[in-house]
């Protein structure tokens, strides 16, 4: 897809339409190589499922993309422009936002304060609570997120509702590249449906690209356009979702487990 010089530096320009392009990203933590050589791309309006087992490097990649950590090498292109993402704020300016399942929201604050956290509307010196409440309400309605009241403390909502609010918040703050970290983990079918529906709605809007990071591929295959598999710090599999199946993905993962087991027996 891209021509790469042996030193991994030069590449041809990214084709137009790629919202995000990651080329040869590496990351080591001391002796541990978390990311060996990551190459992936995310088209505008696309939903990409990034699957991988625990420890494959998913969260490290996330942290790099959202500016929490710096890569050890390689480059990142946003809308064809090479960028060095040096902080979470910077990532957000570039339109990249990560939604963590449980970390994102502050339980002690109301839904609308969470929606506006760090982007509060202020009529100095006070917060414009009425305005924020109204806009939060409108925005959640527009996305079809059904919650009893925007005044409720987030602590009182279900996991799915919290997640939905976190996603809505990201979209609301003009995220164009949305990274969802394990959005469906520990979630029942009904709750998961809430999130899947929300992603589907986002897809229809067409201006938001979504990367869903998960290790349960069954749940996300259905709503994703394409599937990437991350194994041992590398993307080892890249196919449109309609050309693959749960069975195929399953076989790959089972194969990996079999190999790990064999290796263990060898060393033991």
């Amino acid at each position, binding site marked *: 897809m891209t021509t790469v010089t042996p030193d991994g530096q030069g590449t041809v320009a990214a084709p137009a339409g790629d919202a995000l392009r990651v080329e040869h990203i590496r990351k080591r933590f001391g002796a541990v190589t978390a990311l060996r050589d990551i190459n992936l791309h995310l088209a505008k309006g696309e939903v990409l499922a990034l699957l991988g087992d625990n420890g494959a490097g998913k969260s490290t990649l996330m942290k790099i993309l959202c500016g929490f950590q710096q890569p050890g090498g390689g480059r990142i292109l946003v809308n064809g422009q090479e960028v060095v993402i040096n902080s*979470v704020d910077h990532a957000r300016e570039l339109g990249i936002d990560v939604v963590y399942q449980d*970390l994102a929201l502050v339980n002690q*604050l109301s839904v609308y304060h969470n929606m506006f*956290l*760090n982007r509060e509307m202020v009529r100095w010196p006070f917060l414009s609570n009425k305005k924020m409440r109204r806009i939060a309400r409108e925005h959640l309605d527009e996305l079809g997120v059904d919650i009893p009241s*925007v*005044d409720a403390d987030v602590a009182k909502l279900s996991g799915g509702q919290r997640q939905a609010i976190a996603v809505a918040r990201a979209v609301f703050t003009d995220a164009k590249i949305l990274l969802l970290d394990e959005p469906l983990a520990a979630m029942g079918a009904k709750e998961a449906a809430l999130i899947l529906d929300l992603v589907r709605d986002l897809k229809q809007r067409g201006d938001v690209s979504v990367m869903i990071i998960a290790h349960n591929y069954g749940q996300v295959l259905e709503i994703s356009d394409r599937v990437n598999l991350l194994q041992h710090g590398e993307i080892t599999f890249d196919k449109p979702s309609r050309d693959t199946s749960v069975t195929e993905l399953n076989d790959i993962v089972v194969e990996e487990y079999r190999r790990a087991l064999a290796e263990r027996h060898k060393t033991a």
Partner: protein
Amino acid sequence: MSETAERTSVAGGPPGGQANRSSPGLLRRATVGFMQRREATVFVVVVLLIVYFGFISSGRSTFFTKLNLIVLSQVAGPIIIIAIGEVFLLICGEIDLSVGFTFTFAPFLMHYLIDFYGVPGIPAIIISLLMGLAVGWVNGFLTVTLGLPSFITTLGTGFALQGIMLITSHAEQSAIPGPVQGIGHWIGTYAWAEIGWAIIFVIIFHLVLRRTRWGLHTIAVGGNQVGAQEAGVKAGRIKYGNFMITAVLGAFVGLQVAFQASVIDPSSGGYTPMFYSVAAAVIGGTALLGGSGTIIGAFLGSMMLAVLIDGFPVIGVSANPLPLIFGAAILLAMIANVQFARLRERGRAL
């Protein structure tokens, strides 16, 4: 007071979309709303204590005299003001144990500046307050930047400040310097100065906590620091700031108490007012683990302690069993608060 307590919700307004506002329903909802506020229990306790000391006990003839009310207000004021700072710190997950020594040192610094260095009165007061700012910054630096737990850092800075104060003052009292006696009246000498300042600070900081970004971010940092930081909230800045707010308030109270006592005393301040204030904050519903708390609650908690401190001598209980009564009262208030909170949760679930 009940109205004030009711308006402390973070949401700052009634839940939307509820129809049927018939008047008995409204009254009932207002009552339920009030009882669901953390401050409600403390408010009731304060009222009961005042009723007891003012109408039932043997001291009832003295309690409502002007003199006693002044004493009561002068006891309450410093606790309230320091508690305000502690509320901000506790909410964002920290504590300041050193504030009582910032309190002790501030009037000494003012005295040194005026009497030894010829600094005029008002600049000396301002520099003493800035000293508080600096102590707060150091507490922030040790806690946020060096990553030590604030329980330890502020214990250390507290001792250090006490040492500096004792070395420089030779543990001796000093008179209030002439140039600040005039302004000192407004800060602490006039009968209602303590409570007046306390109420001004309560109003200001209540608004800061409930209605500004600073307050919102303080709650966010205490409630979920990682999440708040991921949203871009500058947690370190919030903590630095709250350490500085607390220490400046402590320095201010130190000046107030010196002016009110007409003497700068090395034995005033220290751990006692700090612990009263932390107790007041916690009694008023501030969570020791961060994330929630109110200024109104801390105000009521301080009033409760002040009524106890003032009330027992009024009814002629000797000073010796006072700490015991005091400890029991704090524990009872907190048990009541926790149990009441449980009841409220249950009531909500039903």
